[in-house]
């Protein structure tokens, strides 16, 4: 029998730095706050947006990466609310640092309620991606991320950034494609607050990304496969198939 004393990854960080750290690990207080937030969120999405989720049975056990089209701040909240059990507890939304972690109060909310990890535009170092990869595999996490990198202004889907493929290449961690309908109408980037409106989330079958080589060509092919899979779940995509 070997004793393995593994301190918290964020041990020794000052409180403000800890909130913004990719190493942040929650304790009982963080778990309780996040669970309370999820309850509130589920109620809100059911009452105001009559959220419907299809394909929940496609979700594998953690770790996995949940990706979707990105048109609204409702996207990450809806994807997080669709998860259940261990996957919900292990879910971390990868969020724009400038938007969600800019102020102390914002960072505290993003960290404790949403359980988000910050990605800084133009400032993300290679080491950050390595940390995210390590944590994904070792801590068996669930990442919620939007490969377009930013919210679509017109509701259509844009090009996928290569970060997703870099994150999962060689890890064997499955990517689960999703399509969310109605979020752009309910809360487009141009609006300050959301309005009631139907939300429909479709969760697709996990993509076996281990089939792709870990080189540049493989990552490009993986990015494209992910984009096709997400688009295939849209109403237009479903009609085509």
């Amino acid at each position, binding site marked *: *029998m070997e*004793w*393995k*004393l*593994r*301190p*918290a990854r964020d*041990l*020794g*960080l*000052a409180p403000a730095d800890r909130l913004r750290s990719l190493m942040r*690990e929650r*304790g*009982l207080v963080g*778990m309780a706050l996040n669970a309370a937030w999820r309850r509130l969120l589920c109620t809100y999405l059911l009452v105001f947006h009559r959220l419907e989720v299809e394909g929940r049975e496609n979700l594998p056990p953690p770790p996995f990466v949940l990706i979707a089209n990105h048109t609204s701040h409702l996207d990450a909240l809806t994807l997080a609310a669709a998860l259940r059990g261990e996957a919900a507890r292990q879910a971390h939304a990868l969020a724009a640092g400038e938007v969600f972690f800019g102020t102390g109060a914002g960072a505290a909310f993003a960290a404790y309620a949403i359980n988000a990890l910050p990605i800084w535009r133009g400032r993300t170092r290679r080491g950050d991606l390595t940390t995210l990869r390590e944590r994904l595999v070792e801590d068996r996490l669930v990442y919620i991320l939007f490969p377009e990198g930013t919210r679509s202004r017109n509701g259509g889907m844009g090009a996928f950034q290569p970060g997703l493929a870099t994150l999962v290449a060689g890890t064997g961690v499955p990517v689960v494609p999703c399509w969310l309908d109605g979020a752009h109408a309910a809360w487009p980037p141009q609006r300050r607050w959301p309005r009631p409106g139907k939300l429909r989330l479709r969760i697709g079958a996990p993509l076996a990304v281990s089939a792709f080589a870990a080189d540049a060509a493989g990552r490009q092919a993986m990015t494209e496969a992910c984009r096709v899979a997400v688009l295939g779940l849209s109403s237009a995509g479903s009609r085509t198939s």
Partner: protein
Amino acid sequence: MSVAFAHPVTVWIVSATVAVVAAAAAAIFWLSATGRVRPDLRKELWLRLGSWCVLLPLMLGPVLAGREWTIGAVTILGLLCYREYARATGLFRERLLSAVVVLGIVAVNFAALDHWYGFFVALFPLTVCVLAVASIPLDRPQGYVQRVGLAVFGYVLFGAGLAHLGYMANDANYRPLVLLLLTAVALNDVAAFTCGKLIGGRKLLPATSPNKTLSGALGAVVVTASVVALLGAAMFGNTPMGALHWLVLFGVLVSVAGQSGDLMLSSIKRDIGIKDMGVVLPGHGGILDRFNSLLLVAPAVFHLVHYFVGVGAGQPVRVITGGG
């Protein structure tokens, strides 16, 4: 106010504490003004003093304020210490066991608040039993001994052990004793540091704590035991504990248990491979780095006093649950 300062020892300890802080501030100011310390050391000294200026009112205030405040403060201290311990050892990832330890800490402090000694004592074996079986239904035998061992150790230190400090507040004259323990363990640290620096010599346990010396440890025993025995005479003069040899034992116990708690935390940190348990207190590290000496002193002194004098005798019992 008159009740809080009814005992002369309370007045002496609070006055001495204020005087020491004022003298330390004057000394650091003088050293800074005359340029006798390096800027980095000067900053460190001010940080430490600043931390003490925040800590001391938080430590002494609840004790002076009353029984409920004292037990409440000890509960919070136990929970904060456990949080640092759990994050340092990785036990926090075992959510179920961590929750049981937290409930155990709250329960044992509730027993102290209720002044229900039977429940207070029973909670130790009961909580250990719950910790032993709680994670079995998870059907994950890998790491069972480690997680249960860490959880039991955590509960023993920050629940069952530390709660003795709060339980003392059930005694009508608890203030001088609790204040004495809080300040004596700090004096013990200072005495060990000062004697070690002045005398030097052989290292105490170099692999565990490379800066501690044998002369520092012995010097701390002499200084702390003398002060504690002297103040103890004013507190327990008319009781069976007032005999000189028992007062000396009382003083030695505070010093040895205090240093043992310090070395215990050093052992934990060395084993894990970390320097400090946290960063909450500038100049000190974590809360545990500051309060480690109290962990063993509280139960040791409680049972010594309980044996000779009794704790809480004549006070109402089971004040919340009734049935007393």
